[in-house]
C-alpha cells in the first residue's frame, strides 16, 4: 500500500468510524432542488466495501447531482449521510477528500500548463526542509504511483501535451493518489479507447481487492455487466431500485431507466416526405469530423446518433456556420451555398437549437421576450432601427401559448423558468424565424417528462407542416421514436444511415460503438 495521506488518516481516527463497517457509504432520503427543478427527490444510495456500484439513468435522472453531493460539491437540502456508519456532513469537496472520498470528473479538471506531477500533488506538494516544493520527491512519488498503476506517462510532461485519453488516466491516478476509500468515477471511459478501458478495469479490480468502494457512472451497458457488482437505477430525480448486477439483464435495466417514458414518447406522425431541401456533400471540419454526406427532405426527421465525442454536435455547428467547414459542400434546393457564420445559415432558412442551453442558448439575465426575439430582430420587425415591440410581443405571446410555456408573464427572467420551459422559449425563438430546416441538438436534455412529450409533439407537427428536421440525441428511444432515418457517427465518421423500419437500439449501438 502507498502512503496513507495524513489528513485522511487523521480524520478517520478522530471520527471514530466503525473500522470494518460493511457499508462504506449510506445516504438516504436525499432531496435537492434547483430553481425550477427538483433534481433529487427522496433518493437513497449505499456502497459496500470492495464493491463497484454502478449508477444508471438517463440524462437528467439525477446521477450526477447525487455524485456531486457525495463528493461535497453540492449540499443536499435534506437527507442523511453516513460514512462507515457515522453520520457526517460535507461542506466542500476538500471535506470529502479528507473523509476519503475522491471524484474523477467527467469534464477533466487538470491545469494545462502544469506538469503531470504538479497536477497530481496540487495542494499536497512534498516540501523540503526550507518549505519549498521538493520536485525530486514529487517526481519519485508520481513515478511510484504510475508504476503501481502501470501507467506509462512521463511525470514531468505538461498536461497540455497529453492526449485526452492520457489526461483521463492522469485524473484516475490523481484520484487513486489520495488513497481514498471511496472513488467516484463519472463516465471515465467516455474519452478513452478500448485498450485503456481494459487498463482502467485492471486498476478498478486491484482497488476492489484493497477493499475500496467505487461508484461508477456510465451509459455503457457492457461495462456495467463487466465491472459492476451492484447497480442502482435513477429516473427523473427518483431512486428506482438497487439490483445485483448478476441478477438483471440489459433489457431490465433499460426498462427501469426509461420506465413509463417509452409509452409517453410521442412517435412521429406519418407524413409524406417531399423534395430534398438540404444536401450535404463530404462536409469536413479537420480534427472533428470527415466526409459527412446526406440529404434531408421536406417533412423528414433525420436522427443523428453517436456516442458523446463522435462529432455529432460539430456537424450541426458547422452546418449552421458556428464553426465553418474546412471542406465540403452544402446545397439548399440544389444550389450550393456558403455558410461562414450563423447569419448566412439563417438566410438559407436554417434554425439551430444548441445542445447546451446555458452555454449557447439562453440569455439568462434577460426576460423571456428578449430571449424569444433574439433571432428575428436582425431581419425585419424594426423601423428605422426602432424595434416594433408591440408586434413582436403579440408574436411571442402566440408562441408561448402554442408551446405552453408556463410562466406568469413574458417579462419573467428566463433563469427563473424550469429547464423544460427554457427549452420551449428557445424553440419559440427559432419558430419565429419560420425555418425550413430545423437543427435540434439534444432538444430534450434536462427536460422533465411532460415537457419532453410536448417537445416531441411540436417537432412532429413541424415535420407535418413540411419543415425538414435534423435531430441529434443521445437517447436512443427518442432517436428511434422520432426519426424517419438515422445517421450514425463514430469518431468523426459516418458509420451508417439506417431506415426507420430497420432501426433498432442494438443496430444503432453497434454502428455507434463499432
Amino acid at each position, binding site marked *: 500500500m502507498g502512503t496513507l495521506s495524513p489528513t485522511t488518516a487523521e480524520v478517520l481516527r478522530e471520527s471514530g468510524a466503525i473500522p470494518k463497517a460493511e457499508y462504506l457509504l449510506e445516504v438516504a432520503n436525499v432531496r435537492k432542488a434547483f*430553481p425550477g427543478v427538483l433534481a433529487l427527490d427522496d433518493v437513497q444510495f449505499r456502497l459496500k466495501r470492495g464493491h463497484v456500484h454502478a449508477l444508471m439513468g438517463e440524462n437528467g435522472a439525477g446521477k450526477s447531482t447525487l455524485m456531486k453531493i457525495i463528493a461535497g460539491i453540492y449540499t443536499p437540502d435534506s437527507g442523511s449521510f453516513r460514512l462507515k456508519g457515522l453520520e457526517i456532513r460535507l461542506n466542500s469537496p476538500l471535506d470529502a477528500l479528507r473523509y476519503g472520498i475522491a471524484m474523477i470528473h467527467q469534464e477533466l479538471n487538470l491545469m494545462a500548463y502544469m506538469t503531470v506531477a504538479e497536477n497530481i500533488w496540487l495542494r499536497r506538494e512534498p516540501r523540503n526542509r526550507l518549505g519549498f516544493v521538493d520536485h525530486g520527491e514529487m517526481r519519485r512519488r508520481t513515478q511510484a504511483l504510475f508504476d503501481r498503476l502501470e501507467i506509462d506517462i512521463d511525470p514531468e510532461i505538461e498536461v497540455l501535451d497529453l492526449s485526452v485519453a492520457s489526461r483521463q488516466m492522469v485524473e484516475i491516478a490523481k484520484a487513486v493518489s489520495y488513497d481514498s476509500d471511496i472513488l467516484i468515477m463519472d463516465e471515465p471511459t467516455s474519452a478513452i479507447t478500448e485498450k485503456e478501458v481494459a487498463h482502467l478495469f485492471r486498476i478498478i479490480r486491484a482497488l476492489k481487492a484493497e477493499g475500496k468502494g467505487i461508484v461508477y457512472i456510465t451509459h455503457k451497458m457492457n461495462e456495467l455487466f463487466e465491472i459492476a457488482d451492484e447497480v442502482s437505477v435513477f429516473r427523473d430525480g427518483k431512486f428506482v431500485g438497487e439490483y445485483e448486477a448478476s441478477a438483471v439483464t440489459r433489457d431490465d435495466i433499460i426498462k427501469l431507466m426509461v420506465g413509463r417514458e417509452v409509452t409517453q414518447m410521442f412517435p412521429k406522425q406519418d407524413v409524406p416526405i417531399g423534395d430534398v431541401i438540404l444536401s450535404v456533400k463530404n462536409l469536413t471540419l479537420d480534427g472533428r469530423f470527415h466526409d459527412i454526406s446526406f440529404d434531408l427532405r421536406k417533412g423528414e426527421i433525420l436522427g443523428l446518433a453517436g456516442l458523446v465525442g463522435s462529432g455529432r454536435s460539430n456537424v450541426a455547428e458547422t452546418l*449552421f456556420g*458556428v464553426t465553418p467547414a474546412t471542406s465540403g459542400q452544402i446545397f439548399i434546393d440544389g444550389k450550393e451555398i456558403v455558410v461562414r*457564420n*450563423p*447569419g448566412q*445559415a*439563417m438566410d438559407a432558412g436554417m434554425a*439551430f437549437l*444548441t445542445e447546451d442551453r446555458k*452555454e*449557447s*442558448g*439562453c*440569455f*439568462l*439575465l*434577460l426576460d423571456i421576450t*428578449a430571449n424569444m*426575439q*433574439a*433571432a428575428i*430582430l*436582425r431581419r425585419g420587425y*424594426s423601423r428605422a*432601427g*426602432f*424595434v416594433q*415591440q408591440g408586434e413582436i410581443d403579440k408574436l411571442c405571446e402566440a408562441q408561448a401559448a402554442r408551446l405552453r410555456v408556463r410562466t*406568469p*408573464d413574458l*417579462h419573467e*427572467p428566463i*433563469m*427563473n423558468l424550469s429547464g423544460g420551459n427554457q427549452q420551449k422559449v428557445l424553440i419559440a*425563438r427559432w419558430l419565429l424565424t419560420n425555418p425550413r430546416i430545423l437543427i435540434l441538438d439534444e432538444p430534450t436534455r434536462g427536460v422533465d417528462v411532460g415537457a419532453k412529450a410536448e417537445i416531441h409533439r411540436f417537432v412532429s407537427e413541424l415535420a407535418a407542416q413540411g419543415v425538414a428536421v435534423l435531430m441529434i440525441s443521445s437517447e436512443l428511444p427518442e432517436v428511434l421514436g422520432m426519426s424517419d432515418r438515422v445517421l450514425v457517427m463514430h469518431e468523426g465518421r459516418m458509420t451508417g444511415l439506417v431506415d426507420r423500419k430497420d432501426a433498432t437500439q442494438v443496430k444503432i449501438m453497434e454502428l455507434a460503438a463499432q
Partner: protein
Amino acid sequence: MSEQALSAAPAEPKRRARRLPPELSILGVMIGMMLLFEALGWLIVGQSFMANPLRLKIMILQESEIGIIAVGVTQIIIMGGIDLSSGSLVGMTAMLAASLAQREGYTHAIYPGLTGLNPLFPVLAGLAGGLVAGAVNGSLIAYTKIPPFIATLGMMVSARGVADWYTDGQPIGNLSDDYAAIGAGWWPVIIFLMMAFIFHIALRYTRYGKFTYAIGANPLAARVSGINVERHIVVVYTIAGVLSGLCGVVHTARAISGQAGVGAGFELDAIAAAVIGGTSLSGGVGRLTGTVIGAVILGVLTSGFTFLNVDAHYQEIIKGVVIVAAVIADQYRQRRRRKV
C-alpha cells in the same frame, strides 16, 4: 368572467412589486446623501448644502463631463466589455479640438493658418479623433479577440502619449469666443442629459440596444442567434469613442484651453458612475438612468466633502468605499432576485 377576476387578483400586487424600476433604490441613496450633507452642513459649518445655487452648479457641471463619457462606458459595460481609455481619449481629443479653435489672428497658434475657424471644425476634429480611437478599440477586441481590458489599456497609454506629443506638453490657449460658447453656462449639462436621453432610448427601444444587452448576457448565444457580434462590438466602442471626443470638446470649451493632462482618471469615475448606477460588470444588466444618478452621487460626494472642509485624501478614501459598497449591494440584490 368571475374566475378570471379571481385568478388575476393575487397576481397583481406581485407583478407591481417586481416592476419597480431598480434605479429607485439608488435614487434613494442619492437623496439620503444630500440630506445627510444638509444636516452635517448645519451642524458643522452652519450653512445649507443645497440652498447654494453656485455650489450645485459647479458640482453638476463637473459631473456632466464624467457623465458624457459614462454614457458610452455604460453601454460598453452592458455589452460585457470595459473601457479604460475614455479619460485619455478626452485628453487627446481636447488637444485636437483646441488646436483648431484658436482665436483669429493669434500669432502663436499651433496652426497659424487655421485660426478663427468656424467652431464646427474643431468640434468635428474632436469627435473624429474619438471615433477613430473607438473604432480601433472595437476592432482590436472584436477581431483579435484580445480582452477589452488589454485593448483599452493600450489605447489609454497611447492616446495620452498622443496628447502629450501633439504640442510637446504645451497647453493650447486663446480659444475663440464662438468655440467657448459650447461650454458656457448650462451647455455641458444639457449636452450630457441629451446624450443620456438619446442612448437611453436607443438601449431600450432599438435593435441596437437589444443586441447590446444580448451580447452582454451571452455572446455565444447572440452569435448563434445570427447577431453579427463583431460588428456590434465595433459600433459600441466607436460610439463610446465619439462620446469621449464630445467630452474633450466640451471640456476645452468650458476651460477655454486645451491641456494634455485633461481627463486623467475620468475613465475610472465613468466606470464608477455606471457601476453605482447598477450596471453589472459581467454584462447584460444596466440602465443609463442609473448611470446619471451614479454620476450625480459622485458629484454630491465630492462637493459635499469639500463643503464640509474634509481633507481631499479622506474624500478619495470614502469614494472608494462607496464604489465597492455599491457593487456589493448590487450583487446582493441580484442574487436575491435569482432566488425568486
